């Protein structure tokens, strides 16, 4: 690959490796930092720690369910595990990871020196961190049902009236409410910050129509954060009022409505899916073009599809509620809106394939994860279509089919996208390359484990196995499938271990990357690796969507065609 000239040479101050300074000072620097890159890394690392914790919780559940009538954990513990697993993965693994990507990369990609509100950025991170600490403090601090410890056990969507004082004594549910409430404030702050940064901090020449798709998708993500977190926050405040101030919003014994909670929760919950998956789309939209050596196919329609996904996702929430007894008209409406979201999503998949079509595909680890992402997200979308047909959902809703479906979205889509992004930008962040050999071990182990677990998880759902049961009878014909599903977890765990090992090893011993190891086209590759504190000594000026292409190919620049 031709080595690119940086657009503006970064001031040549080699970044000191932090090992040379006293530990306390390094810690102090990280804790008080308002630098978007450091906060991005902190968000990302925080999310990875939560991912491992949530993964351990999932592994215990799979060990329990591997055999019929198993007695590894009690029902009380199992109920805590799935509540904590779901809450952890959504709010403290996936959200911080996507915020980490946005924080680190958006300012670099739009040629800015930091986020619009650096101190708000730090505040948002620390609020999220505090929320997670409060949630996990419940293991020691919450006084729950007798003999059962303490962590919340109401499920991650905490349906009323199970959360009312009558059914949830002690404080376990309060830890859930307060932990999410606080991290929600942090999320709103970060969403606002990302949005403002993108709208106000773009470098000269970067019109909205020239932003990398990564930035576009994070714009819509940030917009959804601003719209969607509010209803959850409101519902949680109402629940606190119910629990401590004698309110009756969700108190069915006093005329309150359990269904209102569902509406509040899912009006947050469904856009949340897109809050998480749009950043994965964002990664894929950067990686596929670079490793296919072609620009993204149909930039304009990709932007239009992203924006329309943002809007449509606000009108589909009640497909989580097809079984609560809505009228046939309401059910039909949500079938239509849910199926409609398949159109822009399909356009995206077609455009990614269109980008690969006619390219010269390089099978480096980030690209492998993206190709797996494409296939898996395709399947996740198609099982989503099945679930969108309300009568089919009357059978599949709350069964293991749904669990398989949304893990296909979250693992097969989001986590594969996150791994692709981690391999792709690791050289930029650390200045060193990750090992390709270990990367391929990671990829194949994780791929095999993922498919063992989540392909076979659809089947017990079709055979009538509901979610959230701590055990099942042998006579139901579910045990073979559950055993395969549980064995897959081992491969996934091995894959993640290889990745962690690869990260640590490459950080110290990886090949020096240089500023542009992938011969890429977006602005972040024009500054040094790792970028200096100020990102760009002089703000870059751009003329097209691929400024580095223009620089590398002055005879055939993109701006001639836009």
């Amino acid at each position: 690959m031709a080595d690119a000239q940086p657009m503006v040479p970064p001031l040549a101050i080699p970044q000191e490796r932090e090992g040379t300074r006293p530990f306390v000072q390094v810690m102090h620097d990280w804790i008080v930092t308002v630098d978007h890159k450091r906060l991005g890394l902190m968000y990302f690392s925080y999310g990875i720690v939560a991912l491992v914790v949530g993964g351990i919780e999932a592994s215990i559940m799979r060990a329990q369910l591997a055999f019929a009538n198993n007695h590894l954990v009690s029902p009380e513990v199992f109920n805590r595990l799935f509540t904590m697993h779901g809450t952890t993965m959504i709010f403290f693994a996936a959200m911080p990871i996507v915020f980490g990507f946005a924080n680190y990369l958006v300012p670099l990609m739009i040629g800015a020196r930091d986020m619009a509100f650096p101190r708000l950025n730090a505040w948002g991170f620390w609020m999220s961190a505090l929320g997670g600490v409060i949630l996990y403090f419940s293991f020691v601090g919450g006084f729950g049902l007798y003999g059962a410890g303490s962590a919340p056990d109401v499920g991650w969507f905490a349906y009323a009236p199970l959360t009312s004082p009558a059914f949830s004594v002690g404080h376990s549910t309060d830890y859930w409410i307060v932990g999410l409430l606080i991290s929600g404030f942090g999320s709103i702050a970060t969403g606002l910050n990302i949005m403002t940064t993108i709208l106000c901090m773009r470098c000269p020449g970067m019109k909205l129509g020239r932003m990398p798709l990564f930035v576009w998708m994070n714009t819509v993500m940030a917009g959804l954060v601003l719209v969607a977190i509010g209803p959850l926050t409101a519902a949680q405040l109402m629940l606190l009022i119910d629990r401590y101030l004698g309110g009756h919003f969700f108190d069915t014994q006093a005329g309150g409505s359990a269904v209102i909670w569902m509406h509040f929760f899912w009006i947050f919950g469904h856009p949340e899916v897109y809050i998480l998956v749009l950043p994965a789309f964002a990664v894929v939209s950067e990686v596929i073009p670079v490793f296919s050596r072609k620009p993204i196919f149909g930039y304009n329609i990709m932007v239009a599809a992203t924006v329309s996904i943002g809007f449509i996702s606000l009108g589909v929430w009640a497909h989580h509620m097809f079984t609560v007894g809505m009228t046939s008209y309401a059910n039909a409406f949500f079938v239509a809106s849910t199926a409609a979201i398949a159109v822009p999503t399909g356009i995206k998949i077609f455009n990614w394939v269109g980008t690969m079509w006619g390219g010269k595909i390089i099978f480096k680890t980030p690209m492998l994860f993206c190709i797996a992402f494409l296939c898996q997200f395709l399947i996740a979308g198609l099982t989503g279509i099945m679930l969108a047909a309300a009568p089919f959902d009357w059978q599949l809703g709350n069964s293991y089919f749904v669990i398989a479906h949304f893990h296909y979205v979250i693992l097969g889509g989001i986590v594969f996208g996150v791994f692709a992004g981690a391999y792709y930008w690791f050289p930029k962040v650390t200045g060193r390359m990750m090992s390709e050999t270990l990367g391929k071990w990671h990829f194949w182990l994780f791929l095999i484990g993922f498919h063992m677990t989540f392909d076979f998880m659809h089947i017990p759902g079709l055979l009538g196995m509901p979610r959230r049961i701590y055990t099942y009878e042998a006579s139901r014909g579910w045990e073979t499938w559950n055993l395969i599903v549980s064995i897959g977890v081992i491969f996934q765990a091995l894959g993640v271990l290889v990745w962690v090992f690869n990260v640590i090893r490459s950080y110290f011993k990886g090949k020096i990357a240089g500023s542009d190891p992938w011969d890429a086209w977006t602005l972040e590759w024009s500054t040094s690796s790792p970028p200096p504190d100020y990102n760009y000594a002089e703000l870059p000026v751009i003329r097209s969507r691929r400024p580095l292409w223009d620089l590398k190919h002055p005879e055939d620049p993109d701006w001639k065609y836009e």
Partner: protein
Amino acid sequence: MQQVVGSNGAMHLRSTNCEIRNLTPCRLSSRASRVLLAISVAAHAPAILASTGGPSSTPSIFNPASTPAAEIHRLSLFVIAICLAIFLVVFSLIVYSTIKFRKKADDNQEPPQIYGSNQVELAWTVIPILIVVVLFLAAARVIHAVEDAQFPPNTIEVTATGHQFWWEFQYPASAQIRCPGRSDSTSPCITTANELHVPVGAPTHIVLLSADTDHSFWVPQLAGKIDLIPNRRNEMWIEPHDVGHYVGQCAQYCGTQHAKMLLNVMVDTPEDFQKWVQQQEAPAMVSDQVAAGRKVFETNACMNCHTIGTIAQGRFGPDLTHLMSRTTIAAGAAPNTQENLTLWVKTPDAIKPGCLMPAMQLDDQDVTALVAYLMSLH
């Protein structure tokens, strides 16, 4: 069974499966269903495996035995067929492009830079829209057929009330349940728990209520699930075609023992159903042989929660008036045998940890007497 991939073989396996289960051969009407039999076989494999060791009870959604479940089954095969077709097309495109457009080792030229194509993009916008419209119409038809159904006069009425962690079924007087000797027409004629009896070939209309938290009524072979939500009245219906014993369970997380809130639906012949109705309408058995056990029941907290005929009127736990007409106890958690009843009375947590029935700390003599009394309640 894995070797059988042809549709004939699959059909054979299916009907074998049905015969084991005492059902008439499954109806497979549409062409789409033939195309997708391979999927059904995959889904049925465990049912067939399990059937070698005894009566199979896999509640597969691909083995419907009642009108709403069969409607949903037909729709599901149609939707799966469309999704499978889309999958094959797009997956082939992905595989083709990864194989065809690999970078050769010695090739350092950039490929032609293509930015898009309006025609192609228009095509893959319009075609998905058309598919979505078709899917919507197909789903809307079934939504209407199931949710807006009209009921004939011979419909059985049942009220199902969800409790942590068991089901209460109440039958008011109706065309098929005459309810002799009951002057008060508002109170239910029959009250039972955990095992729903319905006649074959007639619709049963089920009103769904909850006494505490959310639950969901799901017997996959009979109908899709509908939630039981406190302070809300939901409805569903079934119209079983085949006599049999259908299993299901609570499908909305309702607390500690959500997993052992099982459902058993007995679809009886009309004659058997009438016999069952008469048995349930009879007053509670009174026998002097078990007077000691009855005294234990009456002098302990048992009667605060359980109903037995006119002896006790508790409402928190299942009605025990005709306890021995049920095949299981503790909402399907254990077979209804003397050993299990004894264990259940002594230490409910041994069968269903976290259930709301307390251990009454009775001595062995009292437990023996009480179980003897319970076992007289036919």
